[in-house]
């Protein structure tokens, strides 16, 4: 039934035979439900809309797309992918459908399909950098660093003044193990943007990847001189100090975040590990601050574990349910639960999980897991 009715209009409709438009009103109801995060209601309304013969043709593809997104919301990825495919059959250059299917494939870890769809989206809008960013993210997930570097290089040629592109390429070169080229890009970005913290972060990360911990920490200190309130930088520096075995300094650095009324869940996790390794508990003040935070979203379950409010099994099960191809819940669960097991005297579980993290994680988390494993082996052999 039409949603917009006046008594006059209703009367006229009955007299004059105004066609009902169930397809249209169901479409609108579906979109409105989606906007209120009511996925089940949205799927129901959009299914009714798609089944209706009077859904206007121009809305059919978007109805499939919208229903697909709601299927994806409730983790029914195969149904979502089928809907995106139907949308693309109706509208072969449908950019949003390519992007959505690309993300769904990525969640299923079908990186080749995801990259293919992302490339199709780029063919529709070749100059759209946000699509290239998405593909680069997928290349990174798939560890196709050379392809990511090629994408960056193509854009750097057209936007030579954009230092964020140089830093992005530096990061990919670092991940590909091409440290000299990575450092050259980071230094070029530093020369172009002398007062920015981010080239220092890039240089620090490159040094860290080569286990040059002092250089790495020095660069992060330089970054902190510029961005003194960025808690992410404190976490990064603390992790580097932890990796370098300077646990007291690591604890101090993580603690600085809380001392300045900051709050970072990862800082709490690492502070807990650093303090535990020194045989001391995290201060009660910090614990009460952390307990007062909303821990419903990731990495909240990890924080709960470290607060003693949940079990490793629950965290791992939850992470497996939530994990998707573009995020890192599973990797983080393996790393942090593994480290927690190690600090709680369960070396077998710790070894199993940290080994999984060292295999599945990328970048710094992989390195931290590897260092934790090496420490365990060293401690075990003594």
């Amino acid at each position, binding site marked *: 039934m039409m949603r917009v009715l006046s008594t006059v*209009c209703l009367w006229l409709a009955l007299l004059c035979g105004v066609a009902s438009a169930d397809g249209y009103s169901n479409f609108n109801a579906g979109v409105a439900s989606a906007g209120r995060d009511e996925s089940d209601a949205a799927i129901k309304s959009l299914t009714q809309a798609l089944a209706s013969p009077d859904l206007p043709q121009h809305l059919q593809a978007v109805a499939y797309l919208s229903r697909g997104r709601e299927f994806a919301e409730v983790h029914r990825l195969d149904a979502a992918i089928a809907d995106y495919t139907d949308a693309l059959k109706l509208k072969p250059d449908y950019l949003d459908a390519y992007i959505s299917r690309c993300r769904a494939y990525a969640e299923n870890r079908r990186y080749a399909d995801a990259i293919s769809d992302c490339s199709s989206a780029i063919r529709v809008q070749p100059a759209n950098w946000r699509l290239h960013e998405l593909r680069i993210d997928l290349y990174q997930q798939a560890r196709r660093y050379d392809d990511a570097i090629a994408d960056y290089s193509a854009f750097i040629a057209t936007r030579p003044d954009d230092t964020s592109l140089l830093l992005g390429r530096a990061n990919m070169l670092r991940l590909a193990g091409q440290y000299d080229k990575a450092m050259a890009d980071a230094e070029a970005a530093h020369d172009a943007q002398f007062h920015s913290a981010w080239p220092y972060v890039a240089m620090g990360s490159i040094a860290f990847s080569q286990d040059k911990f002092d250089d790495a920490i020095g660069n992060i200190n330089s970054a902190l001189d510029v961005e003194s309130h960025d808690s992410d930088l404190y976490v990064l520096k603390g992790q580097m100090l932890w990796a370098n075995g300077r646990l007291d300094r690591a604890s101090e650095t993580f603690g600085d975040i809380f001392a300045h009324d900051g709050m970072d869940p990862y800082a709490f996790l690492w502070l807990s590990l650093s303090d535990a390794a020194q045989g001391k508990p995290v201060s009660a003040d910090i614990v009460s601050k952390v307990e007062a935070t909303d821990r419903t979203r990731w990495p909240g379950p990890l924080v709960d574990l470290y607060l003693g409010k949940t079990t490793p099994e629950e965290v791992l099960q939850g992470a497996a349910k939530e994990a998707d191809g573009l995020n890192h819940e599973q990797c983080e669960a393996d790393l942090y639960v593994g480290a927690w097991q190690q600090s709680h005297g369960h070396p077998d579980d710790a070894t199993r999980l940290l080994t999984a993290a060292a295999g599945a994680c990328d970048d710094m988390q992989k390195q931290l897991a590897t260092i934790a494993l090496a420490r365990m082996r060293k401690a075990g052999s003594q």
Partner: protein
Amino acid sequence: MKWLQLILAGLVISGAVAARADEHAQPSCALQSMASLDTQTLPNGEIAVPVTLNDTPALLAVDTGSIYSSISEEAAVEQGAHAQFSPYIGSFMNGVSTNAFTVLNSFAVGPLRSPKQWSVAIAPDQMLPASISGYLGPDVMRAYDVEFDFYHGKFNLFAHTNCAGAVYWTHDAAAVVPMKVADDGHIVVDATLDGKPVTILLDTGSPSSVMSVEAAEKLFGIAKDDQRLKFVRSISLNGGSDTPFYSFPFSSLSFGAITVANPKIQLIPQENFDPHGRQDAQIVLGMSVLRQLHLYVAYDQKMLYLSAAEAH
């Protein structure tokens, strides 16, 4: 939810989009079509239309709730349009501000093309899906009469008419409602929500329709602990701070003879609605309700013609 409130005087729009309505004025009362564009409906219910920016095809979402047309930061870079900055260009709902604008060499909406350079605001990328390059604002639209035919997927521009009776698409019930067109191009109309007079800002750039919790309390005596008030979700509105949305079962919203049953108008805190306490409208009516209507905005006449979306 796009709602550009203020814009610095230094941002000078350099000329109306070419073939302005008044250049083609005709003595007869027949509506004179200037452009008829197919719309693309976005998954959130908003609509976008094809335009060209510096002769490059792009999609802009249509946003009666903004002031000036805008393009994303990324679209500006793609066009090689250098960003220029002012201390303050304007702010969108939820306090998300922009201080950047740029100048395009050309801007065209269908056959209507700017005679010279065109200035647009730069909207933060996080407000826009990757497929959309920006927003088409009242700076362009108000040079014409604008018809929104959501049911058929059409966005039509006509030469201004001062003749009464622009409802050409239906013999079904329709309403004619006087509207205020603010200096910034915002369209405000009077309506009746559950029997209470309310002022409404029409915002095609907002997927949802909202009023402030405080305004609802004042108008309807809805207490904060009212059982009918339900928390829906909290989202980062316009990429800004998290905003809690509440639903309330309103029964009807009437514009003259046209009534929308069970209008989905959500409530948000005043600080997110407008921290400075806006005076012009109590409700921002977005696409959750507007999609149920067929609208003809007669900017010069200051009249809003409307019918049910499916009326024919």
